[in-house]
């Protein structure tokens, strides 16, 4: 029973890691930039949801949609103003830029919503399903269903829509994408928008479980580990890596000495890099020069 219980909380935590990792991977695949502010975008999403649901008292579904729209807009604007001028600059500069962006977002959040933790009003908070002694909280259930739905939606988008295929095309061969008339720069902006709204969903999903505060974005680092474990560049890998880290974290918390829970993500990362550096799903190819 205990194992099942741990598994459930591990999976739901892993889903959140997976969603943030998805954001990392999406941006990396499309633009070859690593956005270290991904976790902070999630934090912003959670705060916007808090504003819409608690302060402005929108109905929950409306608040969720408004949050997604807001974050998509923020993603697009960020790309347009900060990242686009960096096209062609060294990766290192872009990296520093996104780390700086994370600091700025945390400062903005601290200044506008304060540093004390807040909780998000959700219609489903507190409810539980009792499955023969295994307790499944509604929050956890919603996290799992939400993640599954979002993944299905993204799969269909990338597989069947023209824009989705064009995004794949742009990430597979940027120059050829330009030559066939795909507006690659606009595609980058859209990718940032999608990535930011995925983070927003992650923020909304995790908000009822952990509280909202400006520092909550730091789980982005664990999500980054998840993305690498999954094989940076693979969307299913990101989710799987997230789940792996989430579950191991829960078990480490119970069976290993105190403190192991927090570092287990990095232990997995190190082991992974030693035995299978390309990650679970190897999609990275040798770069053509």
């Amino acid at each position, binding site marked *: 029973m205990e194992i099942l219980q741990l598994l459930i909380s591990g999976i739901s935590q892993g889903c959140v890691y997976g969603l943030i990792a998805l954001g990392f991977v999406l941006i990396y695949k499309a633009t070859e930039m690593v956005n270290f502010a991904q976790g902070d975008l999630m934090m912003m999403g959670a705060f916007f949801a808090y504003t819409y649901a608690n302060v402005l008292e929108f109905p929950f579904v409306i608040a969720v949609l408004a949050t997604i729209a807001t974050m998509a807009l923020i993603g697009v604007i960020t790309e347009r103003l900060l990242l686009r001028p960096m096209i062609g600059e060294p990766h290192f500069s872009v990296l520093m830029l996104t780390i700086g962006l994370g600091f700025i977002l945390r400062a903005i959040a601290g200044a506008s919503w304060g540093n004390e933790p807040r909780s998000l009003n959700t219609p489903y908070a507190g409810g539980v399903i009792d499955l023969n002694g295994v307790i499944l909280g509604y929050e956890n259930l919603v996290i799992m269903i939400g993640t599954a739905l979002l993944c299905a939606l993204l799969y269909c988008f990338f597989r069947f829509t*023209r824009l989705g*295929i*064009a995004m*794949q*095309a742009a990430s*597979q*061969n940027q*120059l*050829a*994408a*330009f*030559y*066939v*008339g*795909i*507006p*690659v*720069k606009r595609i980058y902006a859209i990718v940032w928008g999608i990535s930011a709204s995925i983070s927003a969903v992650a923020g909304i999903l995790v908000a009822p479980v952990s509280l909202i505060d400006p520092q909550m974005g730091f789980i982005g680092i664990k999500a980054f580990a998840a993305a690498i474990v999954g094989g940076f560049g693979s969307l299913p890998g990101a989710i799987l890596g997230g789940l792996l880290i989430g579950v191991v974290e829960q078990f480490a918390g119970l069976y290993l000495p105190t403190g192991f829970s927090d570092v287990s993500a990095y232990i997995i990362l190190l082991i992974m890099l030693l035995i299978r550096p390309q990650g679970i799903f190897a999609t990275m190819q040798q770069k053509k020069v």
Partner: protein
Amino acid sequence: MALLELTNIETYYGPIMAIRGISLNVEAGRISVLLGANGAGKTTVLKTISGAMEPQKGRVTFNGESIQGYDPDRVARLGIGHVPEGREVFPFLSVEENLQMGAFSRNDPDIAQDIERVFDYFPVLKDKARQQAAYLSGGQQQMLAIGRALMLRPTLMLLDEPSLGLSPRLVSEIADIIVRVNDEQRMTILLVEQNARMALDIGHYGYVMEVGRIVMEDTCEKLKSATDIQEFYLGIRDEGVRGRRRWKQRKTWR
């Protein structure tokens, strides 16, 4: 007025001047060819036309519109299809998706019909429509790259060394298709080639480049019979009086 006009183009790779003032005209409805050895700057000329590189000086005019400095996708939407050197297909998309992406900027209902027409040009591709492009052979990828550019319904098609790494049979197959496209769809073509024989056989008007400059231009008929071209590009040479050639006689264009 020519469909495409380059006037005094100068393009740099960093500090290196790759194009040293080139002017050329591509007349509508014709196959123009650009010949030259490795490193002469042929590919750079094409990249400058399609906007992948920006010229430091000079003007690129297409249909009377100044297009230098435009993003490549915008140039493509104006009707310039570019088949880059080394195929550059989208490796993990299927053949059909590759072709659909070629028509990304179009919004008319004829796209499916155009895909059929590409399959008519290249029947091999039809059998592999659902396969990932990465698993095609080099020749098939080249066909796919040409087909993808056709999907744009361009008024001008830039072809960068379509014969690169292909067997002689495939080269003549590709050459036939180029002639057919030019003939059937009245499509203007600018062909960059190392394979001078093939290019001069199908081309109407030709330019010869050497280290960033155009050193010779004429109709392909005349170029074919020019002795310099015969020597340097076609490998034909008369033996000298004493049965050997003297290096002193070798011409340079500089």
